[in-house]
């Protein structure tokens, strides 16, 4: 009988749902997802320690660490390497590149966390995690997900922009348009009834039409 080629299904987390809980060994001790309640969290995976693109990413993540702290946001890395490997790698980055890695890194040797978060995409690699980013809010809900392939390093400005956009949405009950950055006009939620659509045009927003109205936020 011909052997069928099988593709292992990858379970992916869903926006708006509670992030899968975990308890994991990290470079800063054993951490649980619940340890981060009350703060925003960027949980990200990288394929492997001591690899070139990942090293550039770790340096870049370290450089936005203080900016993330200003946004009440913590960073938590993950790969399927051991704690010893993580420690050796971050010591090497500090020694050779002069950058201290301030955030914890999960040593997910048994892939327990990686599987819960759909971080292993077999067509990319059967053994390594792809470049995932999960933005998790203070109530442990998944608010945004980004997946990058092994070959492509992530853009830190986009990660900061994404957190700014999510926090702005929560604070002001608005949406953010394409290429939005803090200070730019935001999108007023679309009207749900014809009455609201007519009233919308009289409310002093900058409207292209009834369904596309923008406003400047007052700080």
């Amino acid at each position, binding site marked *: 009988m011909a052997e069928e080629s099988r593709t292992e299904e990858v379970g992916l987390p869903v926006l708006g749902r509670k992030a899968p809980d975990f308890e994991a060994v990290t470079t800063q*001790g054993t*951490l*649980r997802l619940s*340890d981060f309640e009350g703060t925003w969290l960027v949980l990200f995976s990288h394929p492997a320690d001591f690899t070139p693109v990942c090293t550039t990413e770790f340096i870049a993540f370290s450089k936005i660490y203080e900016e993330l702290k200003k946004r009440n946001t913590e960073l938590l890395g993950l790969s399927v390497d051991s704690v010893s490997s993580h420690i050796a790698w971050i010591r090497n980055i500090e020694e050779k590149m002069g950058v201290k890695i301030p955030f914890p890194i999960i040593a997910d040797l048994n892939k327990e966390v990686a599987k819960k978060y759909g971080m292993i995409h077999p067509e990319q690699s059967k053994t390594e995690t792809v470049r995932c980013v999960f933005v998790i809010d203070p109530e442990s809900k998944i608010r945004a997900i980004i997946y990058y392939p092994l070959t492509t390093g992530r853009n830190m400005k986009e990660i900061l922009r994404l957190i700014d956009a999510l926090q702005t949405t929560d604070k002001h009950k608005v949406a953010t348009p394409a290429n939005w950055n803090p200070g730019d006009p935001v999108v007023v939620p679309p009207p749900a009834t014809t009455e609201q659509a007519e009233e919308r045009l009289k409310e002093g927003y900058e409207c292209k039409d009834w369904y596309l109205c923008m406003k400047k936020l007052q700080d």
Partner: protein
Amino acid sequence: MPCVSPDGKPTSSGVALLKSLKNGALSPKEIASKTGQPLFRVRSGLRELKKAGFVEEAEGKYGLPKSGKCPCSNA
């Protein structure tokens, strides 16, 4: 950082948490504010210290055990 070393003694991070409790029990948020350590690290550290018997928890606040003395130096 781990707050209890493999030999069962509190690490310097653990000692910093214990010192913050000298004047009475505090919540993890209060400890984070007092020590400047991130909240996630305080929660994780308190868990380790509690397991090792260095702190006690009551109604969400952590304090030094009444029976023991504060191991506030890991020297």
